[in-house]
């Protein structure tokens, strides 16, 4: 008995006040940060929503489908910009997902000797560090001239094709939706490949061994086990990239042409919601500001929608596997 009491005293069951205070303090600090982020998000949404009210009252949901953005007559509709946002982002994904996931696979398997692989991984990540205005400049001076020839060929070859031809129905100029889409693809490539690579590398070695042990080849292992196991991580990367593509402003504004004329053609000059905001906010007042806020709200909503769809996709696929 005596021994037992001695023991408890010796082992100091009681933590010091400082230690307990730190524990509690840490909890409240992190809780405050977490709640703070939520509050900031709600505050922005609230502010934007409030400022958009006059425009919402005037144009209603028709704002989403009307193609006229006319500050002179004070009539606003954002379809051209919504279309521009969706098309450039979709084009960016279409180009960047296969390449980005491919890069991630090459850099996660042991295809390359480590001495080559490590610098490559680093360089891909460095792509994400280039400021977007530099991408814009590079697009103007390098990419646009380079694409002029191929774009012209596309225009001449496909413009007459029914349905699909409408995507190529105007002659390409030095600016346009397609250049913005391609520059976006390059900008989001490192996001997709870096996050996908992390997801692939994180798949436990045991799963790989299990597949090999059942007589799967390297490719079967990769496509039936490793990629499915990393799928939610890859989708997460793609969604982050899509969010970036939809919100990217500077490079797109420099390259897209900033035209509010509706056209389905990729070669036409156009605008996105972000480029519209960047272009017009400085000189806007009254209903125009309110309409810009409305457009911002739409972008907000689009991003949210994309994220919800991604969540649904991931949970669906998880159940199926």
């Amino acid at each position: 008995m005596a021994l037992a009491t001695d023991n408890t005293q010796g082992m100091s069951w009681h933590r010091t006040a400082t230690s307990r205070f730190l524990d509690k303090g840490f909890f409240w600090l992190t809780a405050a940060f977490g709640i703070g982020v939520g509050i900031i998000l709600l505050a922005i949404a609230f502010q934007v929503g409030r400022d958009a009210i006059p425009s919402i009252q005037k144009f209603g949901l028709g704002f989403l489908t009307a193609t006229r953005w006319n500050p002179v007559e004070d009539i606003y509709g954002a379809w051209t910009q919504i279309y521009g946002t969706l098309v450039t982002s979709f084009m960016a994904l279409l180009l960047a997902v296969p390449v980005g996931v491919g890069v991630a696979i090459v850099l996660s398997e042991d295809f390359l000797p480590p001495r080559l692989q490590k610098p490559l991984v680093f360089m891909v990540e460095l792509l994400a560090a280039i400021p977007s205005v530099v991408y814009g400049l590079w697009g103007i001076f390098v990419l646009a001239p380079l694409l002029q020839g191929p774009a012209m060929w596309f225009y001449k070859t496909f413009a007459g094709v029914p349905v699909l031809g409408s995507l190529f129905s105007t002659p390409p100029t030095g600016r346009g939706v397609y250049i913005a889409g391609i520059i976006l693809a390059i900008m989001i490539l490192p996001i997709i490949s870096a996050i996908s690579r992390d997801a692939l590398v994180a798949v436990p070695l045991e799963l790989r061994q299990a597949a090999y042990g059942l007589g799967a080849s390297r490719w079967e292992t990769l496509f039936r086990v490793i990629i499915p196991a990393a799928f939610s991580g890859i989708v997460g990367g793609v969604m982050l990239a899509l969010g970036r593509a939809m919100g990217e402003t500077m490079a797109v504004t420099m390259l897209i042409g900033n035209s509010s004329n509706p056209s389905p053609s990729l070669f036409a000059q156009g605008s996105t919601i972000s480029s519209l905001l960047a272009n017009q906010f400085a000189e806007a007042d009254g209903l125009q500001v309110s309409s810009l806020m409305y457009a911002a709200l739409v972008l907000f909503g689009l991003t949210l929608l994309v994220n919800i769809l991604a969540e649904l996709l991931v949970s669906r696929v998880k159940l199926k596997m």
Partner: protein
Amino acid sequence: MTPNLESALQTDTVFRTDNLDIYYGSFKAVRDVTMEIPKNAITAFIGPSGCGKSTVIRCFNRLNDLIKSFHIDGKIFYKGQDLYASDVDPVEVRRQIGMVFQKPNPFPKSIYDNIAFGPRLLGYKGDMDELVERSIKSAALWDDVKDKLKSLGTDLSGGQQQRLCIARAIAVQPDVILMDEPCAALDPISTLKVEDLLQELKENYTIVIVTHNMQQASRSSDYTAFFNVQANEKGQRTGYIVEYDRTEVIFQSPKHKATQEYVSGRFG
């Protein structure tokens, strides 16, 4: 090799190794393995950690090929065929020689898809539902999972996961099942279930099992190889087989003192 072992082995030999040395780079992990593994029996590998049991068992299905620095000297024959001959496809080998690992490693897929994984790889044309059911039943797991074949294999308990992995290995109808400490991560009751399962499986399969558990080796196996490890002058610790014989001989009348000490728990 001892005479009584030889006569037992005359029945049928699945693996035969001939002066096998196994290296990781310049490090000789195991030396001089010369042994025969008989058909439809359970052969246990015992010995202290790091003596190369896993290394040897992974040679039998060429899983070590995944390790770049790995290479062997000497030969391993599987039913008379040189397993490491240049025209042997390791993927083909692993389809005939299944493996169960120390840590249960079900795929993050449904129970059904875990079992169907191997047969699908092989392009199995028969009744998949029937094959899945049969495989799960042979792994004594049917009653646990028959109502939830669509739920995730990774949601099962550790013992159930390990039996799922055994079922998954059985589903490709291999000749041999290699098990590397299959019960190391299991509770005693799950362990007993797996041991019972071993006895049923040996009717149809040849089993090689690495175990740290002396009782498991003496209870379950027909033959036992005792591995030990010895440091050379450069400090490299190389494993080797001290003694390989019928399990009762290893546990009751071993020829080597080291074996005697190890199986009685005075060592390692």
